[in-house]
Structures are given as structure tokens and as C-alpha cells.
């Protein structure tokens, strides 16, 4: 393999190499520094005159004397069952002091798109034990459901609680967690690691850590390494894999940095115009394949800059994922955990995973009714602030009180409280029974007669 010493320019994470033999687009590159260390990169642009290489680490130490080798293949990830229980760097090297991983396969990290025709519809209900998810934003196996949060909010605890409690009803299949950290602090990473160790989850986990002080450009490959591993575990070994990616905001910043270094025309707020496509190449790597046992369920976490949901990072994410769980600063200030604001939250696959066959026949309508009532109560809060409670009609006052009830009983729960879906739905009915029955316009009579506490009691009395 020929080594070139023809670097003509270095700009940010990009290295420009002149006059090479033909080099393939996307090829892996080794850069040998004077001190003997090796850095890795990838070809972004190739012609007979000039090759542009994106380096995955800092370009510190790279100079005209650096030797450049093109490895003739795109980036591959060695994968194997042994990876379970291991901690790797954001670039995929073991950092837990354990042995090198003996690969069973080497896979391209870009990952080909799943043929839509080969996908199976995700419809298996996953119980997370959290009412605001199970009851009103139900997660199903194979879904990609991000957590939209803000700096300083307890999104990590929510993710951990989900990772700990998530189960499919009545299933004992093999599962695994793939955890990819991008640019989070050492402290946050420890929080995750300690919880994994405490609960024994680490044995079933593969951890990739790119921390705040690790090279930013490496973040571009970390989620891809994680998802390549997840695909192997899911579709080769048949496991149900939960992938947690945190923090996607740091990933996007790295993307922006590379775009700027390439002097591309920037899109909204300086992020590259292709960020939608790039993010899709990560998020779409979730799902189920017909005839295969495993599945990939994704929980990306991102912190919304300035708590702004219209910021390009949450915005483009929301356009790709199958809903979002929105963590609210207001609820957090009120001391409510988990501070999930159900109003902007959504699970688009919910309808596939609930109802008679999956959870309970009343699930959809109860959820709709809870939403509608909470939304109305919440609106009225604004009005009360202006006109005072006395100016409200009787009906409005009931909805106003419902909103408080909903937050304090349905939303609020313990970090270790694992509610069953039936418990969650019954709780929903209990809260709804505070409203007059004729206000429950979203629910059919039949269901009201069957599940409404008032009628349930009458039933019981009639029978007793």
C-alpha cells in the first residue's frame, strides 16, 4: 500500500492530499504521524487531482510530513457476541482494559437501508412502567422514539428507568442494550454506568463512550458503530435491542463543524442542508424485519438548545422519528418526576400496539380523553391568570382542576415505580371520573358503561 506525503492543506478536521492513485469515495484512511501514532479518517471527495479526507480525531500533530495511506475499503466494524458486557471508545476500541474483541464478522458501518418491503410492522407493546409513556404515548418494539429534553432536566433518569423497566408483556426473549454516548460529561457517563452495573444490565449491554473531551469528529461515527453492532445483535443473533443514543445535539454540532470546514453553503442556523438525510441514516436503522427474530428499538436523547422545539435539531429529528417524548422544564420546576409534557409528546406507532389484542380495548379512547381534558384544563390556566377563577363557568373549573389532578397523579411517579398498563389505564379512569360523564365525548358509551368507576361500582353493587 502506497504512502503519500502530499498533504497540501489542513482545515479543521479536513486534510487535503494531492495527486494520488485513484482512491475510492468513502475509503478509510490511516494517517501516520511523526511520533508513530496513527489517526483515522475517511475520504469525502476524490478526484485525480485532490483527495479530501475527514479525520475522526483532532488534527493536532498532522502536517506535511504526515504519511497518508488509503486502505482500499470503507470503514468496517468488527462485531461479535463477545461485545456484550464491553465498554468501547467512541471509535470502537475497547477501553475497559479487557482483551481485543475477536470478530465474528466485519460490517460496513454506514449500514444499508432496510428495504421497506422487507420490514414488518412494529406492533408489539412494550411496557415501560411509566404512565405518560404506556398510557398516552405507547412505545412499541421496533420504534424510534426520541426524548426531547433541555439542559439540566432529568432525561437520563427517564432513559435509565425505561432501559430498566421495559418489557414486552409475557415475553422471555433475549434482549440487549446498546448505549452510545456522544460528547456527554464523564459524570453523566458514570451515572449511566453505575446504574447499568447496579442492575446487572451491563452484562447485556455494549457501551460506546465518546465523552465531552474526546474528539468531536469521532461523534460522527459513534452512533454508526453502535447501530452496526445493534443490527448484528438483532438480525444475526435474534435479540431485541434497545439503542440509547445520547446526546444527539452533540452529534449535530460535530456535523455542523465539518460542514463549516468544507465551506459548504450552510442551511438553517448554520447546520448543513443535508442534516435531515444524515439523521435519517441513523434513525431509520430501527425496526423489525420480516422473518427475523430480533428488533431494534431506538431511544435517541437530545437537548433542545434554548428549550426550543423548532430548533433544527429537534425539528429534523421529529420529522424522522416516530414521535417524541417531551421533557418539560415547567413540570420539573413543579417538582414532578418524570416531567413529561404529554401535550407535545406523541407516539405515532401507538395505535398499532394498543387495543384489545395488545393492551386493553379502552386504551385508545381513554388516552384521547385524558389528552383532550388535560389540554383544555391547561388552556384555562392561561385564562385564570387574566380573569381569575371566579369568572370561570362551572364546567371550566372542573377542567382546570382536572389538569392539576392529571399532573399530580398520572404524570408524577417514582423513579423506581413500575406501573402496569392496566394500573395506568385504571388510574386514567379514576381521574376522568372527576368530570361529568357527559363531558367524556371521546369515549363510546359501551366503554364508559364497562370501565367508568361509577358504573363499575354499580355493577359490583348490583351483583353483590
Amino acid at each position: 500500500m502506497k504512502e503519500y506525503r502530499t498533504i497540501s492543506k489542513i482545515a479543521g478536521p479536513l486534510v487535503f492530499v494531492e495527486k494520488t492513485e485513484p482512491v475510492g469515495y468513502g475509503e478509510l484512511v490511516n494517517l501516520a504521524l511523526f511520533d508513530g501514532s496513527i489517526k483515522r479518517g475517511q475520504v469525502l471527495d476524490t478526484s485525480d487531482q485532490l483527495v479530501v479526507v475527514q479525520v475522526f480525531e483532532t488534527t493536532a500533530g498532522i502536517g506535511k510530513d504526515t504519511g497518508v495511506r488509503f486502505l482500499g475499503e470503507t470503514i468496517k466494524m468488527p462485531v461479535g457476541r463477545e461485545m456484550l458486557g464491553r465498554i468501547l471508545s467512541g471509535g470502537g476500541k475497547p477501553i475497559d482494559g479487557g482483551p481485543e474483541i475477536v470478530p465474528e464478522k466485519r460490517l460496513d458501518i454506514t449500514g444499508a437501508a432496510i428495504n421497506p418491503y422487507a420490514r414488518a410492522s412494529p406492533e408489539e407493546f412494550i411496557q415501560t412502567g411509566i404512565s405518560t409513556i404506556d398510557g398516552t404515548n405507547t412505545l412499541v418494539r421496533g420504534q424510534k422514539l426520541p426524548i426531547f429534553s433541555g439542559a439540566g432536566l432529568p432525561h437520563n433518569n427517564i432513559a435509565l428507568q425505561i432501559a430498566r423497566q421495559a418489557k414486552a408483556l409475557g415475553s422471555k426473549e433475549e434482549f440487549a442494550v446498546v448505549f452510545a454516548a456522544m460528547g456527554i460529561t464523564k459524570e453523566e457517563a458514570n451515572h449511566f454506568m453505575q446504574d447499568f452495573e447496579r442492575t446487572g444490565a451491563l452484562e447485556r449491554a455494549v457501551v460506546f463512550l465518546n465523552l465531552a473531551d474526546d474528539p468531536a469528529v469521532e461523534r460522527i461515527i459513534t452512533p454508526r458503530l453502535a447501530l452496526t453492532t445493534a443490527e448484528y445483535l438483532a438480525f444475526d443473533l435474534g435479540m431485541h435491542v434497545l439503542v440509547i443514543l445520547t446526546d444527539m445535539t452533540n452529534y449535530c454540532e460535530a456535523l455542523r463543524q465539518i460542514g463549516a470546514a468544507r465551506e459548504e453553503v450552510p442551511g438553517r442556523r448554520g447546520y448543513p442542508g443535508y442534516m435531515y438525510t444524515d439523521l435519517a441514516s441513523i434513525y431509520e436503522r430501527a425496526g423489525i424485519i420480516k422473518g427475523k427474530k430480533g428488533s431494534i428499538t431506538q431511544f435517541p436523547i437530545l437537548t433542545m438548545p434554548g428549550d426550543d422545539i423548532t430548533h433544527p435539531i429537534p425539528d429534523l429529528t421529529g420529522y424522522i422519528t416516530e414521535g417524541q417524548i417531551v421533557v418539560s422544564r415547567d413540570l420539573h420546576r413543579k417538582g414532578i418526576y418524570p416531567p413529561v409534557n404529554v401535550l407535545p409528546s406523541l407516539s405515532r406507532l401507538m395505535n398499532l400496539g394498543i387495543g384489545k389484542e395488545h393492551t386493553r380495548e379502552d386504551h385508545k379512547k381513554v388516552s384521547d380523553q385524558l389528552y383532550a381534558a388535560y389540554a383544555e384544563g391547561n388552556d384555562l390556566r392561561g385564562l385564570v391568570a387574566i380573569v381569575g377563577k371566579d369568572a370561570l363557568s362551572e364546567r371550566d373549573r372542573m377542567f382546570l382542576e382536572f389538569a392539576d389532578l392529571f399532573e399530580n397523579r398520572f404524570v408524577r411517579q417514582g423513579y423506581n415505580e413500575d406501573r402496569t398498563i392496566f394500573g395506568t389505564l385504571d388510574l386514567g379512569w379514576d381521574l376522568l371520573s372527576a368530570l361529568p360523564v357527559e363531558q367524556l365525548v371521546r369515549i363510546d358509551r359501551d366503554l364508559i358503561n364497562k370501565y367508568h368507576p361509577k358504573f363499575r361500582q354499580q355493577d359490583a353493587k348490583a351483583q353483590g
Partner: protein
Amino acid sequence: MEIEAKAAKGSGGVLKRIAGPVVTAVNIDAHMYDVVKVGHEELMGEVIKIQGNETIIQVYEDTSGIRPGEPVINTGLSLAVELGPGLLTSIYDGIQRPLSVLVSKMGDFIQRGVSAPGLDHQKKWEFKALVREGDTVLPGSIIGEVQETNIVHRILVPPNVAGGKVKSIRSGSFTIEEVICTLDSGTGLTMMQKWPVRVPRPVTEKMNPTIPLITGQRILDGLFPIAKGGTAAIPGPFGSGKTVTQQQLAKWSDAEIVVYIGCGERGNEMTEVLTEFPELEDPKTGKPLMERTVLIANTSNMPVAAREASVYTGITIAEYFRDMGYDVSLMADSTSRWAEAMREISSRLEEMPGEEGYPAYLAARLSEFYERAGRVKTLSGRDGSVSVIGAVSPPGGDFSEPVTQNTLRIVKVFWALDAKLSQRRHFPAINWLNSYSLYLDTLHDWYDKEVSPEWNVLRAWAMEVLQKEAELQEIVQLVGSDALPEAEQVTIEVARMIREIFLQQNAYDPVDTFCDMSKQYDMMKTIRSFADHAYAAQVAGVTPQQIIGIQSKNDLPQIKFIKDYRPELERIKNAMDSEFTRLRSSV
């Protein structure tokens, strides 16, 4: 320079530069939009720019590993689709490769370098000739038919083939490659034709759209109808209901053929369509909906250049069925992803960016696309139509961005989705104050005749109440509802009924998912009759609280979920009458 020198000696073209989906070749004698084969793996691409000896090509597949110096072959053909029996029930990628064939050729993941024809060339179809020897046929004439699914697939003389006298024609079982008809000019016709996707198929004339596309969605048919052959846009932020609305239209609209393009959106959504449609029945024919449907799925993680092509592939297929005399509706979800693909390619070409980085020709491309909609007289003299409904995904939900704005300049119907409504689970989350249909005038007569002479009046009344409510709500926000004059408190209640009973419609309820015009009319009439009673009662001294407290109206939302709703509706109306009578007599 080395490569160019080498190329000059050889016969074919050679790759010079690769940067993602856009590559540069030298020495191919190409025309714009020629299809070329790139590299040793012969990846499919299309010429998008010519500059001296350099030809810029967008490649429909991933270009990783491709090197300068690899060969490039020009096919000299433009990007075209295969049209003929076998289209219906298919699912294609953006360049008409059948996804089912790709699964069998390369497994569950989409690999590159595999070509697959759009139609099955081996399958035999039962062809029935409809013209005889000696008959004269013209471009676009129908020469025979094939029972493809429950849909009759009419076989046409291609519009770009000169007509003539039929020398021979035969009925029987043939593949789409076999000649079934020869003209005296010697031209042999098969059941398949090819058409370049970027060129609109010709028609005799465009006609005025005067018939609504009935969708079974109350807010659409009732307030903001689209005509058959019309154009509509559904912009909205993420999660506001664009896809659900498009899918509802694909399921329930009374088009004869549906082309559904998933352009840069989610894989699971296409799977949902694939699993759901075969099980759903067309309310008109009782046949599986899939049998009238063609799907195009170029999801967000599939190559962007093929995404750019997908809308053209879709509209060409739609036009082809229109040319048989069918009413076709086409959904494109989402046109913003198409525009972004244009932007991505354009920026790689280092073109001067226009607004927000989109190329300067964005507006032109959008209007060319929507112009391909219309109700037409086909070349064979039949009536056919293509209705186009495009979803738009504005960044941050802000409608002032270029794709939304340029689309609104072209389309005649605007269904504005609103996050405030979807967050309240008011679905469809179409904002009744911002949305509009410019077809109301041309469709007026149809509603008069086919629904009721009363309908247009009821519609106007409902819109007026909703407008009025919006004004009153502003006052309520300042002083509370009790401070409103009594008649206006009644208006607020009536508006609530219009919103909650008529406008809200649950796509997931087996009955409410589709609501025909007569039920829509019955519902609106009942609300109107409540309103008339209520205002009269209020004048007679009944208080708004008493009116709001009328019990029987609370049963009204339930009729949405009842299939044979008429008896229950009668019961409610009678109960309402007697409650009002009681209230008035007690004043």
C-alpha cells in the same frame, strides 16, 4: 490530467471525481438527462449538467468505494418508466425498481448495483383486442384491455407512436414483450410502453374541474373540497397529521387509481400501507384497496438522487392511468423532501443558491409538477383526471419558508395543519380559519345536485359560525365567557358542536374513518337545527346555561361511531325537540 489522457485513447467515458451522490465524468458524449452507468458496478445515474468535456451525473445509488478512472457508459436514453399491466399493487423505489424483486435479489437490505425492470416481463396477461384489422388507430387510442386486478387495464397506442391502420391484432395470453398488434406502417405494438418521466404525457385538452374528489373526510369534503383533477397542499409541522391525512385520502377518496409516493419519509409508514391496504375494502367496489394502488417508496435513508426522481416516476404512472380514462389521485409525502433533494444536488453542483439554499429553479420545478395535474380529455377522447395532493414539511412549522410559499402560489386548495390542534388531539388538525379551497365556486352546482340544494347554505353558515367564534374567543380570553351577551354564548356552544362533532374525525375508528356525503349532510343539518332551536329559545328567555345543559345533544357525537346511525339520530332529534319545548314552556 492523466485520466483525461487515458480516456481520450479509449472509447468510453471515465470518472474524474466522486463526491457523494454527484460525480464528474469526462469524455462521454451525453445529453442532459441521459441515463448513464457509472463505474465497474454500473450504478445507474442521470446527467444533470454538462460543462465543456465534463459531464456531471447524479447517481441513484450509494457511491462508496467508487474511484476516479472507473468507466462510465452513456445509454443515450432518458430516465423512463415501464408502463403496462403489472403496475397495480406494486411497490417501487424512486426509479421504478420493484422492492419485492430487490428483496429476492439481494435480501432485506438495499444493496447497490442491482437492476430490476419495473414490470414482470415473463408474466402472461389475458389480452382482449378491442379494435379490428383495418381500423384506424391514433396515438393514445385504446386497442384492447387486460383485466389486471379488479381494474381493467386499457392498452393504448403510445402517444409518441404515429397511428395508422391495424394490419393485425390478436387476443390471447401474452407477455408484455410480445407484439399483439401491428400497424400497416410496420410498427409492432406490445402491452408495454416506456415514457420519459420528466416529460408530461400529452392530452387533447384540459378541462375545468367541476366534480369534487370525495374523500369521506368531513372537513375536506364539507368545508375545503378538492376537485377531481385539482391540486392541494397539506403543510404542517412534524406530527400534525400530513401522513395520516394522505393515507386517509389514499384509502377513501373516490378515485379509481391511487398513486402514493413516500418521498424521503419513513420506512415503517410504507410497511403500514403495505400491510393495511390489502385488508381494507374500497367502500364503492368492496374490493381490496391495494388492487387500485401503486406505491413508490424512496425512504429518507435511500439515495437522495432517486428521491428526486421519485415524484416524476409517480406522476408519470398517474398520467398513464389517466390516459386510460381513469380518475387518478396522487399523494406525494413529502414534497419538502423532494425539494431538499434538489437543494442537496444543487449545492454539490456549486450552483448559486436562492432562498434558504434552495436552487433558483425550485419554484419552476414545483409548478411544472403540479401542472401535470388536471381533468382532461384524453387522446382517445375519454375523460380522465389526475389530482395531486402534496404534503409540505416546513422547518419549525413556519409556513413562510420557500417550499410552502412557492407551493401555495400554485395549488388551489390549502389544508393548513396546526400543531396547536394536534396537541389537543383535535384531528384532523386542519385549521379551519387558515385553510381554503378555490374550487368552491366550480363545485357549487355539483353539491347542489348531488347532495342537497341546502348544502352550500349549510356550509357557508358553518364557516360563519366558526369565524364568529374566533372573534368571540378573543374577547373571552380577556373577560371570560360569562361576560358575553347571551346570544353569543349560544354561538360559542354551537361552534363547539361544529368542531367536536363535525370537524373532529377519528381516522382510527372503523366507522368514523370514512363518512359519506349524506351522513355529513345529516350531521350538519342536525347541528343547524339545534342552533335554530337554541337562538329561538334564547330570544324566548331560556338562559344559555339551560341551552348548554340540553342533555340529548351530548349523545350526538356518538353517531360518528355508529354505522346505521339514522335511527339513533332520529331519536336524538326528537329528544332535542322535546327538551327545547319543555324549556320554553317553563320560561
